[in-house]
């Protein structure tokens, strides 16, 4: 991997050290690679992750560097993948299991929710493992290559769930996830893989704490609470609303869904008193419900308007561009919802 290095002084973040422009995908790979180099207990397991480097090439080059023992190609068997990861994790190793598309994680749903999530609680077994893979739509992938499975796991106590939206967090969270002593579900967004780039320090460790949200944009009239790819549409909407309507929108990137950063949610609600929750996943039973419930429970008095949600329509995601665009949340939907809320 060769990263384009910025000249010193050109770095956007203003830090002194050397920086490199890194895509979201490269950031994940860097994070994994650094952890593998740092800790020989870390290994990768999944379909086509070795010589091929994974369907999206996230693990490209890692088998060459770390050997076949630490980058294991498996049969098509998601339960075997997470099962082997769990067993190895009990023994002190730190597996990172790839789901080729996150849609196939459902095949390991029973094992993950029943075995992995409960292991510490019921049996005092440590299971420091990461399950990661490409989630998300906007790529014409259809109903089985576009899913956002976070809601299916939010419901089971025992997981940590992270959904990075930026290259920096992609790197910082995969590293924290690998170091975490509990099972972490790490949902990458395939639309972001090669579409976003960021200057990341070359010589400084990027670690994003699990469980901490991030205020991606400060504002005072209204808060958008979101995560993953929707962060970018939300920021776009916020910029547009500032320009066109003079609205100052705060955008909170949750980054971690479990444990949820209640403090950050409460803080933004108390600051702006109007909230829009935005997620890409379908509406009914999605994450927004839980966020809205918590807001309602913990700072109902601070609300000047109902909390609203922008989410995908309740259908399996079609692949035809016209249909996918209609079903998934678009910037215009966020703008419209914000205007509605601001006028409430």
């Amino acid at each position, binding site marked *: 991997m060769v990263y384009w290095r910025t000249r010193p002084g050109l770095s956007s973040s203003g830090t002194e050290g050397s920086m490199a422009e890194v895509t979201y995908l490269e950031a994940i790979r860097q994070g994994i690679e650094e952890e593998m180099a740092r800790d020989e207990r870390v290994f990768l397991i999944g379909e086509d992750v070795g010589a091929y480097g994974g369907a999206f090439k996230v693990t490209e080059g890692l088998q060459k560097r770390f050997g076949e023992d630490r980058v294991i190609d498996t049969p098509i068997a998601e*339960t075997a993948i997470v099962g082997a990861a769990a067993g190895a994790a009990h023994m002190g190793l730190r597996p990172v299991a790839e789901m*080729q598309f996150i849609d196939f994680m459902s095949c390991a749903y029973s094992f993950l929710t029943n075995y992995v999530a409960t292991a510490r609680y019921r049996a005092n077994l440590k299971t420091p493992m990461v399950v990661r893979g490409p989630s998300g739509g906007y790529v*014409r992938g259809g109903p089985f*290559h576009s899913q956002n499975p976070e809601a299916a796991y939010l419901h089971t106590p025992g997981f940590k769930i992270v959904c990075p939206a930026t290259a920096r967090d992609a790197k910082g969270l995969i590293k924290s996830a690998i170091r975490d002593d509990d099972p972490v579900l790490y949902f990458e967004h395939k639309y972001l893989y090669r579409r976003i780039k960021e200057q990341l320090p070359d010589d400084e460790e990027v670690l994003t704490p699990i469980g901490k949200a991030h205020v991606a944009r400060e504002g005072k009239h209204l808060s958008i609470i979101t995560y993953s790819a929707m962060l970018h549409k939300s920021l776009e909407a916020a910029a547009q609303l500032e320009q066109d309507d003079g609205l100052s929108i705060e955008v909170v990137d949750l980054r971690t869904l479990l444990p949820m950063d209640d403090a950050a949610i409460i803080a933004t609600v108390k600051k702006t008193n109007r909230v829009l929750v935005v997620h890409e996943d379908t509406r009914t039973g999605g994450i927004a419900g839980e966020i809205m419930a918590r807001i309602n429970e913990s700072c109902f008095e601070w609300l000047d308007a109902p909390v609203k949600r922008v989410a995908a329509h309740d259908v399996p995601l079609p*692949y*035809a*561009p*016209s249909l996918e665009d*209609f*079903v998934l949340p678009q910037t215009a939907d966020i703008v419209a919802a914000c205007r509605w809320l601001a006028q409430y």
Partner: protein
Amino acid sequence: MPSATATASSPLPTGLTRSQLHDLYYYMRLTRTLEERLTNLYRQTKVIGGLFRSLGQEADSVGSAYALDRKQGDILSPLIRNLGSMLVQGARPVEVLRQYMAKAESPTRGRELNIHFNDLERGFIGQISHLGDMVPVMAGITLSFKMRKQRRVGMVYVGDGAMSTGSFHEGINFAAVQRLPLVVVAENNGYAYSTPFHKQTAVKALVEKAVGYGIPGAQADGNDVLAVYAATKTAVDRARAGGGVSLIELLTYRRKGHAEHDNQSYVSTDELQAWEKKDPIDRYTKQLHDAGWATPADLAAIDARIGQELDAAVGQVESEPMPEGASALDGVLENPPRAELEWYRRLHG
């Protein structure tokens, strides 16, 4: 060449007519040419989603599907590389083109990709992406045949990769216990995406897996359409006669990458070249010629017919419209919950 003649003449006792022999050629050639057209469209970015080729595997799809009896209402469940099987069952190129180009009139109305579409009347049911899941589905379809005492047969394809899934195991085991009229076609094409056979399973041949389910297994050269037909026909006949499930392993090779984007870096040129020489269409062409079952002119006429058919189909489909965005909302349930539809209207109105 005597050897070719010997290979070709042996399956003839299964009773294929000259016109049926031409049919087999037609479907294989149609499959390949249609996929070539799709590749062109893909390069023009007119295809939505990936493009999955069955280059070199046409005999496997066509020969096995041809062993079913369409008049009896047999049903098969193809995978992404079984375009040929679907064509045999009556899927039309224009439908396939519409699917790949996400047209409003496509069988799934722009909802599910590529050849994932159904027609139970014609006798095919589209897969979902989750590998292995069609095995339990076909167990259920053939269970209905058994319960209704129909003499219909089901066929389901599984790759060397898909056989590692839990769904495959649960489905075939259930079907075996129930002695359902099901033929499981195990396509051994050497790879599952980039994963070679020996990293997928410790068996030497997929047919060994039949033993673990207490069902008969057989192996055939998947690049010899008549051998494929003969082996599958035996299993279909057994199923129809109440003899239960069989597993047929077809030995073949995936000559393109997993999908068009995959450059097959993990495959050696030698291997590729060796299999190019075993091309099933070239081989069958030679068989037909050598045995005198078809003249070069016969086959040229078929090729020409296919070319015209596909020219017309591509021309027609290219100009068709994409679906209307709002059409995405209906059809999740028989009776859509009214309140939700109202909400949709409010949001978008």
